[in-house]
């Protein structure tokens, strides 16, 4: 399967996800959808980082005695793992703020719930 796709296909997927995330952030008014937009943006960056380090037929970099020449880059995987953890913390905080905003204003529409202007 992976051999039949062009080599830079995952990068295209990452950029498409990035575009979807930015579109949601700019054009959607629902606060929950904004949280989803940030999550999609985070996933696209994660996909991008993992793809950077991936080598077709590469081994996982977990050996002390290396069995083959080709290995997957471990550093980007560590970066991705960190970003996933940070993403969970960010989503949890934003969702709790959304709950608070809903309790105060009774709406999730960012135009109606807005208290500050100018």
């Amino acid at each position: 399967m992976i051999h039949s796709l062009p080599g830079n296909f995952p990068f295209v997927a990452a950029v498409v996800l990035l575009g979807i995330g930015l579109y949601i952030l700019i054009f959607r008014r629902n606060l929950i959808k904004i949280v989803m937009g940030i999550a999609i943006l985070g996933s696209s960056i994660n996909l991008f980082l993992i793809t950077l380090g991936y080598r077709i037929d590469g081994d996982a970099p977990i050996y002390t005695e290396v069995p083959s020449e080709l290995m997957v880059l471990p550093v980007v995987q560590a970066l991705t793992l960190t970003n996933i953890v940070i993403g969970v913390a960010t989503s949890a905080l934003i969702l709790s703020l959304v709950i608070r905003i809903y309790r105060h204003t009774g709406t999730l529409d960012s135009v109606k719930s807005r208290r500050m202007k100018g």
Partner: protein
Amino acid sequence: MSTLIAHSSILIIAVTLATAFLTPLVGIASKRARNTLIVLALAFVAFLVVALARDVMLNQIHVYTLGAAAPDLTIPGGAIVPVRIILEVDGLSAFMGIVIAIVSLVAVIYSMSALKTETGQNGFYTLLLLMAAGMFGMVFTGDLFNLFVFLEITSISGAALIAFRTKFADSQEGGFKYIVVSAVASLMILFAIGLLYSQYNLLNIGALAATMEYTMLDRIALVILMSAFVMKLGGVPLHMWLSDTYSVAPASIPALLIVASQASLYALLRTSFTLYGVTLDQSVAGWIIIIVGLLSMFVGVTMAILQTDITRLIAYNCVCESGFMLVGLGVGLAVLADPGALDAFGTMAMNGAVFHMINHALFEGLLFLVAGAIFYRIGTRDLNQMCGLGHTMKLTSVLFLLGALASAGIPPFNGFASKILIYESVYQFNPILTMIGILVSILTLAVFMKVFFSAFTGASLPRYRDVREVPRPMVAAMIVLAAGIIFFGLFPGLVLDWIVQPATDALVNQGAYIDAIMGAVP
């Protein structure tokens, strides 16, 4: 003592983090013990920062390799590039460290009485210390990915602090805006880090700078990094979130948020001067920063005139003041490749801008603390509701006037000392920039005179007859900042020689930063 200094950069971050997590535990037992612990820990951290800064300025760039046999063993035997996380403290990092240490200590002392009646104080101090640790990490780290992680720590704890008073709807909205902006900015930063890593397989700033080739991908990464950091510091096309978040945070937090913005400014400087440095097309990048700065100055001050909410007005003034720093640094960047112009006015412009960073933290912090003191006593931020507060809050009104005059650049306060450096040097680069700067300063004075006359002068209203001066810890915190304003205004030469000049030298001298990591041998 020398061992302590050798390990001080990691100790500063570690002590702050450890205290953050000890705070709720100690807080269960006793409030007094918790407050003592926090103040002692931050005072110890401030001592370490000053000792480290002195060492950096007298000797050389300080490096600390985490997990290595010796702190200065940046490249392990057998490797050709650094593989561990390295903390690297040069003049600019040490300068930022001093700013962070002063402001976080003041913010804690102020909060001790400003938040006395609030619930959830254990959580508040934990978040405050986490934010301080994040900022220290941002300015001390020599590793791009580590910078991203510390930026996220700062943003997440900052957003939680803004939304700390859950009873107000607007503070929840402010916290939401802050975290959305920060999350997007830091994800874009990670994207740019990925672009750089894909070409060079490096994350260390010094090592990246040494191998930088300035390809097309590097330019894209530069644009993404610069716009993300400008977004985090609130430069003008991307400033909309700033007034909404600063104005609703608990009184002492805007002072910290200013420093967090400046840590982003530091990251912007690190990127443009150290990471790209000589490979960069300096005059284009410099002019972009200058234009962002001019827009910030102009939009910030005009929006400030319109505001009737006191903290919101000061927040717009922050946008305006960061414009001055951006203009000074942009001029420095634009002439970086031209040694003649750099000696004639470039260094002076950067000196002015770096000096303005610490001045900005002091007077803008003071103004926010004064606004917080007014809110603490009368429970409103609306200028139309205030009148004659100067009759009963004498000290507060004097302190406000001090901060306002410093911000407008009136001698003998510190704002004048840094603004005159920027005016003089920028005039030699392009006279129009100086004219706009002076005009903006005059408008700033007008803005603050409006606040002073509507809030502090006038007849004393019956409903504010019982308003008293704020409690002593709050006054003490404000006086510390006010003393800094006067001291820096009266002895600018001392400050310039000791902390500002080394910071500017560190910015210009990209080679020294690289050599500290890679060793002098190429």
